[in-house]
């Protein structure tokens, strides 16, 4: 039985790798995606383009603006002199925000009156706006602390001392790159398994497969193994690239990650084979893969937190294998998780793997008659 299975696996690999184009589809795009997404998928803001409208001629406003000029997060793109210039700058997206300082800024401060800075900001991209406002606030805050200390203002009764664990500089890349491990592993595995049976059906070779001594379970295993091997290899490659190329710290247990990866691959293969058994043509297979893949990515916490979703949608994410694997891969990379911490993620993955495999086997037998 092993020899027969082995022959089928070899045949599957040949079918996948023989054609130059499909070979490229398996190897090229994941690599490109890793590089592009690793660099592009970031929520961090730098060089926020801003304009200054300073009506004050005193030194306090210059001191405050100097702090913005000195910050790498900000980049001044214009200095304006009247109100009418604000709208075009923001509308045409030349500046994300305009800092407007009133004429009495320095005088007010010297008289110990509170002063304010108007921050006019483009809200079209609400996330960038939120973050930019936070940045502006922290610059003003550091100015305040300094001003209060040097100009005899009262001391604030309390100060926030903020520290972040696991990612002290809050780099988005540390969050996104481990996520790409899950994303690309899922994409590749589903593409390999989701179209394999449909391709045979379309080319008419499925009937030939059925008259061989292979029993249905062996055929299914022969279809599953290439997906597992290719998925595992690409996953391992992306993990290595994440550690050595993108310099994301990896502080957890490799074995815990390997177990998670194996369970995740099994779940993905089960789903891929289910799609494959239902689809008659490759187009249907592709549509099926796509219809699963997109919600699986969106509702996994890959880019936006699950906690922000409506309650009903949050409940829906419990059947998504990627949700669990993302926790595993990020936990192992950044939080140093081992088997003990991840147990609550393993068993749902195993459950999904088991049920999708069973369903695939059932569908496969069922569709043959």
């Amino acid at each position, binding site marked *: 039985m092993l020899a027969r299975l082995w022959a089928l696996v070899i045949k599957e690999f040949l079918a996948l790798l023989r054609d130059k184009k499909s070979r490229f589809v398996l190897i090229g795009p994941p690599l490109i995606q890793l590089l592009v997404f690793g660099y592009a998928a970031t929520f961090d803001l730098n060089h926020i383009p801003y304009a200054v409208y300073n009506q004050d001629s005193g030194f306090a406003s210059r001191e405050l603006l100097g702090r913005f000029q000195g910050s790498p997060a900000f980049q001044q793109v214009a200095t304006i002199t009247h109100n009418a210039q604000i709208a075009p700058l923001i509308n045409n997206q030349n500046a994300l925000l305009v800092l407007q300082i009133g004429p009495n800024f320095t005088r007010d401060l010297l008289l110990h009156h509170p002063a304010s800075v108007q921050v006019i900001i483009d809200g079209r991209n609400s996330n960038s706006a939120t973050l930019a*406002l936070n940045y502006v606030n922290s610059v003003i805050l550091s100015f305040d602390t300094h001003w209060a200390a040097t100009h005899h203002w009262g001391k604030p009764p309390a100060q926030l001392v903020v520290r972040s664990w696991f990612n002290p500089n809050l780099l988005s890349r540390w969050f996104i790159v481990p996520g790409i491990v899950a994303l690309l592993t899922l994409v590749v595995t589903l593409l390999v398994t989701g179209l394999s049976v449909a391709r045979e059906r379309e080319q008419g070779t499925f009937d030939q497969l059925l008259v061989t001594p292979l029993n249905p379970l062996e055929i299914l295993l022969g279809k599953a193994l290439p997906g597992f091997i290719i998925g595992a290899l690409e996953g391992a490659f992306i993990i290595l690239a994440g550690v050595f190329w993108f310099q994301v710290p990896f502080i957890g247990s490799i074995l815990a990650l390997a177990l998670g990866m194996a369970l995740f691959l099994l779940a993905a293969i089960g789903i891929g084979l289910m799609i494959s058994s239902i689809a008659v043509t490759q187009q249907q297979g592709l549509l099926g893969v796509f219809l699963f893949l997109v919600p699986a990515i969106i509702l996994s916490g890959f880019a936006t937190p699950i906690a922000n979703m409506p309650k009903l949608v949050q409940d829906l994410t419990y059947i998504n294998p990627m949700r669990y694997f993302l926790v595993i891969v990020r936990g192992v990379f950044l939080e140093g998780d081992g088997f003990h911490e991840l147990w609550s993620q393993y068993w749902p993955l195993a459950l999904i793997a088991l049920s999708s495999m069973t369903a695939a086997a059932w569908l496969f037998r069922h569709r043959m008659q």
Partner: protein
Amino acid sequence: MKLQRLRGLIRKEFIQIWRDPSAIAIAFVMPVFLLFLFGYGVSLDARHVPVAVVVDQPSAETSAFIGGLQQSAYFTPQIYGSIQAARQAVMTRRADGILWLRGDFSRQVLQGDTTSIGVFVNGKDANNARILQGYLQGVWQGWLQQRAASAGAALVIPVTGQDRIWFNPALRSRDYLVPGLIAVIMTLIGALLTALVVAREWERGTMEALMASPVTMGEILLGKLIPYFFLGMGGMLLSVALAVWLFAVPLVGSFWVLLLCSSLFLLAALGMGLLISSAAHNQFVAGQIAIIVTFLPAFILSGFIFDIQSMPTAIQVITHIVAARYFVTILQTLFLAGDVWPVILWNSLALALMATFFLGVTLRRSRKRLD
């Protein structure tokens, strides 16, 4: 080019669409499905963030501070008895951060010293952690102002920032995500529609039959382009309707400008699909290339969710060849800001260039040859 032949081809295409409803599904079911999914599934607005609160010695001062936290819709404060227990809560993902008021908090506040409030956030999700930090800072500033006002104490905040947020005052992330989403969806649908149908003709051998007929290659391509253009525009209108009526995103700009820009964009997307299928004569490869070169770049490199200006320069250059980038900018502006002509004209020009490029290259590449 003969109009009659073209009409015949278009008629044939429509009959084929009618018989195999998968194209209709791609054009109409997919946008609805994706809009629902993204519209409800993707949100960057953190609400009710679980924060572990540790108060070493409860007093009037500490409850004034915690009160600010409890009133905020951004937090769900959970009280923990010790910093160790709170730490454990963060480790087991029951809380996203810790706020720690130490034992000497009240005493130092009353004495007029500056005490420090410990804030720890789980930085794993950097974006979320930053938003959480900003929220906590807001609570702290609110508390300072309240204290200054009620105690008549000397003001301790010399300068405050006054935010005026244009176009989306409540900073609802859905308002900016949904317009961008339409661009992402239409990229995918446009490319998928044409990529698969031409590859299908090759795969089934009917392309040879078409070539044996007197129609020219240009007529064949137009015969594909026109039906799927109308199908795609149908999907586009459906998406806009859903955005406005279901997701309540304001459409500030003009509908006709939107329609015009959408047709330009759709031509570029359909052209991309045609180019893909002229390179790949099989549906498997064509479909995969369509997904890989359209959907994921449109998702990540278009500015739909990740700000292009934050990307490394090399990647920023690459985003210029992503058609969705221009359409995302147009849609976000049209929906939220209105008809801002400089933005719309430049981006439309880029779309027109891309459409011309894709359709031109496809036409040049397509010869009546069988190899």
